[in-house]
Each structure stands twice: as structure tokens, then as C-alpha cells.
């Protein structure tokens, strides 16, 4: 039997661009004015500017241009759905190949991280203190932007490592752990204190936070994968934990031979990729709607098909079949699409008498995440279970701001949206704390 080495099969999918590749690609960019790629980027990175800096071999300046708009630029270079954003808007897309903006961004940001070059300095101290709850991309960005403006920031993170889903939830194939950690260290070098294994409501009280800080930014993300509510659910693994194990302890992972992944979002795709690459003979994704309604991006869908993963659309799990305490199969029912539901998608309905069993020995679910619990804890107003914020990212509690996945009532959750929230919230907090210099930060 072939020995599978996780560090090989899960290693970053795209190789780094060589200097020559980057120069050729950067020179292909037309340098559009008021470029559509910049508009399409949720953080509005001045993309032609950073690309032309690569072309002129001013790579540090290029990285600074990227990080000025997006402190998590190294992560976004890897995980952004560029086909839907910058590259999708590239004017060369219609007749030519769009510029490989994501890979060029990775080239520039890796350049500074690999050389330990800091492109920003902390601002002159304002004497104001801000607490950030949750060290994901939104929280780190908000902390970093505030530190650049001279505020004293402490980030409280319940997990052992900072950088949220960039650290725990994105497979190494797309983003190595080191990249997420380099971003954390960069934020720390801006003077931000990151306290890990500190959780609000457990070993950190809301009173302490209120008393110790002038403003608070909540970037707590979302919760665990919700329950399906089917018999035998205790046998089903959590997709996010599955991915986390593939990053932190791939050698200790037990991979089934015949794996079913429930769900068809990007996390489900990642979980299926892990299973397939770590040796599962057969991986099947089970989804109650069709490929037209699935939330995974089209490029992720075509990627996972190329990985050899199979699909069962219009299929809903109803029970885990186990034998002797071990998973033996997943009983499912066929679905038919009916009227459109609240999400605007046709609502799937079970077809009577269509039950069947898909044999398998491991089941993983990736069907979204639970709504943030902190809203209830602090008594915040919510919208569809997400924390409700105004245009300044301020919650119903004055001085308490929020951003990232925990406020994403509309649109799809993504790193780049979280970064933009963190940045905009930081500027709003700054305007409130230091009105005399507010105008300078608001750009």
C-alpha cells in the first residue's frame, strides 16, 4: 500500500510565482484607470498600482499597497474567490485571460513576510484602549488598523492560535498555517496584544471588558456546525473539526475508506478534499438541492470534481446506519424541488417512498455554522440571528462594534468581507475616540 504523506498531498496547490512569472504577468496588466478589479475587491485594493509596482520591481511598495487596503492580504491572495471578484472584473477577461491578480498578490505579500519586512509602524499613542473579541481576520484587521492609528489594542481569542478560520478552517492546500500565523505576528509587531485561550463569558467577564476599554469590537465568528436532527447523529463528524485536524494533526487523523460529506458549500468541498487526498477510496457529497443551488463557488465545484469526488444531488440524509457502533451507511431520501423559499432558492421536498442507503464508513457534515451566541450573552439586537450593526458597524450597545461572519445576515461570508468590516469598524471607532484626527483615517 502506498504511504500517504499529508505534508505532500495537502501542500499548497498553487506553487509560488517565480520572479520571472510575476514580471511577465505584471507587465500584461493594462494599468486601467479607476479599475474594475479595484471596485470588485471588497477591500478596494488599488490593484493596478500594486501590480505595476511588481513590474517596476518595487515589491515592498507593492505589498504596502495591498496591505494598506487589506491587512490580511496574504490570506486573501490565497482564499479569495477571485473569479467572482477582482479577476472576474478584469477587462482582459472577455477576450484574453484575466490577470492572475490573486497569485500576484501572493507574490508581493509573501515577499515581505519571507524577509520579515514590516511595511507599517504603530501610530503615535492616543491613550485610548480598545478590546477586540475574537482574533479572526475581522478582529486582527480592526486591531491592526487601530494600532496604526495609535490606539492600544488587546485581542482576546478563545482558541490556542489566532487568525480564526484562516488558521483552523482553510485547508493547507489553499493556505498553509504559517501564512495565517505570519499575519498574526505582523499585527502583534504593530503593538497589538493577543491573548489566547481567553473566552468572553468564561474566563473573561463583560464587566472587565467594559471597565478596561474605551471601545469594543466583536469579531466572534459563528458557532459549530448545526445539528441535522437525525438518528445516529453522534456518529457524524463536524466538517470544521475535520479540516482543523488536517491542518494541526494530519498524521493522527482517521480517514474513512468510503466517506460521505453532507453539504455542498465551500467548507464541504474542503472536507471532501481532505478525505480524498488523505486516502479515502470513495468520497461522496450529499446535497438536498442540485448543483445550481449549491453555495460552493463554481471554481470550487470544478476543482472537487477533478479530485474525483462524487455527488448525490436531491438527496437528504434521514438516519445514520450503524453496525456494532460503527458507521455502515447513511439512509437518505430523494428530494424534488418545489416552490422558492425565503433564500430565493427552490425548496426541496422529500419524495415519498424513495428511501435508500448509501454505504459508507465515515460521515462528515458541513452545512453552515450556528449563529453567534455572544448576541444573547450581551443582549444585542440581532437580524436573522446575526448581530445587528449600523453603517458604522456599531451594535445596539453604544461603543460596542461588530464585524465579520457574526454580522453577515446578507451576502456570503468570506475572509475579504470580514477584513473590510474590520477596517471600516476601526475607522469608525477611531472617529469616535479621536475626533481631531478622524478625517485622516477615513479613506
Amino acid at each position: 500500500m502506498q504511504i500517504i504523506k499529508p505534508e505532500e498531498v495537502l501542500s499548497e496547490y498553487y506553487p509560488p510565482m517565480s520572479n520571472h512569472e510575476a514580471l511577465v504577468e505584471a507587465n500584461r496588466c493594462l494599468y486601467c484607470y479607476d479599475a474594475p478589479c479595484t471596485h470588485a475587491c471588497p477591500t478596494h485594493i488599488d490593484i493596478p498600482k500594486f501590480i505595476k509596482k511588481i513590474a517596476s520591481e518595487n515589491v515592498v511598495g507593492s505589498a504596502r499597497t495591498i496591505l494598506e487596503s487589506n491587512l490580511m492580504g496574504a490570506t486573501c491572495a490565497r482564499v479569495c474567490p477571485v473569479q467572482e471578484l477582482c479577476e472576474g472584473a478584469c477587462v482582459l477577461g472577455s477576450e484574453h485571460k484575466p490577470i492572475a491578480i490573486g497569485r500576484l498578490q501572493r507574490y508581493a505579500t509573501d515577499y515581505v513576510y519571507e524577509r520579515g519586512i514590516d511595511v507599517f509602524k504603530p501610530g503615535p499613542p492616543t491613550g485610548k484602549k480598545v478590546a477586540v473579541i475574537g482574533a479572526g481576520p475581522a478582529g486582527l484587521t480592526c486591531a491592526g488598523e487601530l494600532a496604526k492609528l495609535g490606539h492600544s489594542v488587546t485581542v482576546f481569542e478563545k482558541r490556542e492560535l489566532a487568525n480564526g478560520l484562516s488558521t483552523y478552517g482553510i485547508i493547507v492546500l489553499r493556505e498553509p498555517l504559517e501564512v495565517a500565523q505570519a499575519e498574526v505576528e505582523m499585527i502583534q509587531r504593530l503593538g497589538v496584544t493577543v491573548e489566547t485561550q481567553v473566552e468572553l463569558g468564561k474566563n473573561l467577564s463583560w464587566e472587565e471588558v467594559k471597565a478596561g476599554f474605551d471601545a469594543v469590537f466583536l469579531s466572534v465568528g459563528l458557532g459549530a456546525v448545526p445539528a441535522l436532527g437525525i438518528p445516529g447523529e453522534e456518529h457524524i463528524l463536524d466538517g470544521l473539526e475535520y479540516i482543523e485536524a488536517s491542518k494541526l494533526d494530519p498524521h493522527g487523523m482517521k480517514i474513512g475508506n468510503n466517506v460521505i460529506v453532507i453539504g455542498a458549500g465551500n467548507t464541504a468541498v474542503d472536507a471532501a478534499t481532505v478525505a480524498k487526498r488523505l486516502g479515502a477510496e470513495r468520497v461522496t457529497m450529499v446535497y438536498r438541492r442540485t448543483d445550481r443551488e449549491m453555495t460552493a463557488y463554481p471554481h470550487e465545484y470544478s476543482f472537487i470534481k477533478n479530485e474525483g469526488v462524487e455527488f448525490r444531488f436531491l438527496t437528504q440524509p434521514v438516519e445514520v446506519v450503524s453496525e456494532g457502533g460503527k458507521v455502515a451507511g447513511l439512509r437518505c431520501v430523494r428530494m424534488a424541488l418545489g416552490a422558492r423559499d425565503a433564500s430565493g432558492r427552490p425548496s426541496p421536498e422529500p419524495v415519498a417512498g424513495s428511501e435508500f442507503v448509501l454505504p459508507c464508513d465515515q460521515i462528515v457534515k458541513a452545512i453552515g455554522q450556528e449563529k453567534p451566541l455572544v448576541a444573547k450573552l450581551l443582549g444585542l439586537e440581532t437580524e436573522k440571528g446575526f448581530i445587528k450593526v449600523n453603517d458604522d458597524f456599531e451594535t445596539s450597545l453604544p461603543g460596542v462594534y461588530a464585524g465579520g461572519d457574526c454580522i453577515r445576515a446578507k451576502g456570503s461570508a468570506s475572509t475579504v468581507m470580514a477584513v473590510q468590516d474590520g477596517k471600516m469598524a476601526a475607522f469608525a471607532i477611531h472617529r469616535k475616540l479621536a475626533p481631531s484626527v478622524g478625517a485622516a483615517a477615513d479613506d
Partner: protein
Amino acid sequence: MADLSINFAGIKSPNPFWLASAPPTNSGAQVHRAFEYGWGGAVWKTIGAPVLNVSNRYGAWHYGGQKMLAINNVELISDRPLEINLREIRDVKRNWPNRAVIVSAMVESTPEAWRDIILKIEDTGADGIELNYGCPHGMSERGMGSAVGQVPKYCEQITRWVMDVAKIPVIVKLTPNVSSVVPPAHAAIAAGANALSLINTINSIVAVDLDTLEITPNIGGKGGHGGYAGPAVKPIALNMLSSLGVDEVVRKSGVPISGMGGISTWKDAAEFLLLGATSLQVCTAVMHYGFRIIEDLCDGLSSWMDSKGFKTIGDVVGKSLHRISDFKDFDLSFRAVARIDPEKCIRCNLCYVACNDTAHQCIDLVDAAGNRVEPYRYDLRSNGKHQAVSTRPQPVVREEDCVGCRLCHNVCPVDGCIEMVELPSGRPSITWDQLTKARPEVGTDWEAMKWYREEVGIDIH
């Protein structure tokens, strides 16, 4: 099929393409291989005075990822012993009787030295001689090359010495490192030269190394000006070629011109022919891609000639010269405006920024509702390809304000997207020369200019 053969001052060649006197024609083996590929002729790398060369002799200018838009060199004339060169020239000519073998020469400026080299060259059976009055580096420090070409008197004197001896056609190669190539050309013609060739390379320093602060290329810690050639010099060469083509003395003399300076493709070649060259010399393109490029030079030129109904090279030579004019004879009433085809436009806005920042501020960004919008005014909360693309405005030329400068046409990355459209100006044709002859004050007094503009309806704002 067009007939590509030429008869250049008695030198016959199956096509007009000759390798220029340069590294590609350094040896018999190279010229032999070039002829196998189909080159019509070769001008042997200059032979003459003894020299020694240095390393790092070729520099290059690269731009925007495109390699070698120009080459720069401090290589001297042939450093191979004279006798070896002469023997190889003889061998090549014997093997290739129907190809043009021309030998470039440069010796000390004495009648004896020139007489000696001319006799030796003629003894090889070569078809012609090219006098190298152009080499701008090294040799010029020793009173040869461009040191001759820059002084019409020397040019004439040495050409006379040569013409007294030579029995085969003599081409005088001119240096571009002068304010005008016309006086040296006149000098060569006055001395009886059979033909002219131009341009030799241009004085240049190609780069400075930003790590070491050394000159590029670095020759043992030093560097200096070298001869500049390649695609980047083509417009300079075309101008100098045309300046001879329109010159009365040159025209009346009937001497043919061998054109060179950045010819890389058949299109370049056709332009040199149209501006008066009869034979064409190529160097940098060959140094970049090898002898094989002769295939498309001939094939492309031949197809173009067929499509235009030109049967011989002679039909093409000088065909565009009558259009070369001085500014004073341009029609001031000619009017063209830029028009952007929204179907072809990819909305890169390069025309907009070029016009708005650096030209005449007559391109607007117009949204789908037809309203003029400013750039960078989208809602910062909007994002994604659909919002970015669907809300992107269209650049539109305000034709009434367009001066027809053509900058937008030049910067547009899409072929055929921005066209210059000729529109009636409503004014009778008049040139600056005619205007200032009739009303001299218009050229000297802004008040008079103002009255003239008001009279004919020229509005500059």
C-alpha cells in the same frame, strides 16, 4: 508572386534583405549559413585596421517585459586577421554567385591604406564595398568611423581616394550622430559614391546598474557610450532615410539607398522601401532570433506586395516620399476627431486618463443612463464582478471639444476601438506658409492671431 530581386547600383540580389555589417557577418561559416536560410546578401563585418575587443560588449534596453527593444554595443570592427577574412569572403562568394557579398571597410585615413584595402577586397570577387563612416565608438577615437562621417570634408576626401581605385560599386554608410545626414550624403555623392546606406548606430548609454552603480554593461568597472540599434531606433532611421529621399541633390544623383535601423519584420521593411530604400539591411532582429527570420521577411513582403499590386521592389521604392512634408505645408484646416467604438471598448479608461491628465480633457465617463460621472465615485460598500462591471461607465469623446490630437488612439489597447474620423472643418484649406505669406502679422502678433481665429472660426479653449 512579386519579384523581390533587386539591382542595387549594379549589385544584384534575389531579395532586398542583406545582413548588415555586424556580428552576424563575422565569419564565412555564418554568412554561408545565412545564405542557406535565404538571405539575399550580406555586408561583411568591417575589415581593416587591427583591433582588440572587450568582454561585456553588448548592452540592451528591455521594456515592459519585452526583451531587447534595442541593443547597444562597443564591439569594434572585425578582430579576426585580415587574411582570414579575405579568404573566407572569397570562398563564400565563389559558393554563392547569385547573392550579394559586400565588404565593409575601415582603415586609417590615408590614401595608401584605403587603396590597399580596396584592392584586397576587389581581389576576393566581392560584389561591392561599403565604407564604414559610422562606427561611433572606439574606432572614432582613432579618427575612423563616425569621426569621418561627422565631417563632410573628410567624407568627401576619403570617398575620392576610394573612387580613384575602386572598380566595383561603392556604398557610403552614414552615421546618424549628426544634426543632419544630408551634408555627409552630399559629400559622398560629390566624391562619386555609387550608393548610400544608413543608419549606423546611435551614441548611447544603455543603463546604470542600481545595485553597483556601475554602467551597464560593466567593462571592468567602466562603461561608456556604445552604438544603439534595434526596433527602438526605427523611427529615427525612417526620418533620416526620408530626409535623403526628399533631398534634391540626392534625387538627381540617382544613387540608391540601402536602408537599415531597426528592421525586424516585413512591415518595417515595406516602410523603409516606401520611404526610398532599395536594399534593406538587418542586424538586431537577427541577433535576437537568428537567421531564420528571413523566411517571413520575404514571405510577408511578397504577400503584401501582391495584395497591393506591386510587381517589383522598384514599384514600391519611394512610393510614400511625396507625402513627406514640412509642418508649414500641412493643411491647417484638416480636422479629425477620435471616436470610441463602445462595442469594442473594454473600459480600461486609459484613453480617459491620458486625455484628461495630459491632453485636452475631452473624454467623459458616461453611465448607463447617459449621465457624465466622475471616476472613483462608486459606493465603497459595493463590490464583486457584477457590480463592478455593470456600473462601469463608458468613455465617450466630446467631439466638439476634441482637437484630434490622437493620444487616445495611441494608448488604446484594443485594435480598431478608437478611430480618428475625418470631419469637415468648414474652413478652406490653408497652410501656415500660405497664411503667413498672406498675413505675416498672424505669425508674430497674438492680437492678429486672435482676429484671424475669430474670422475663420477657430475656437481654442
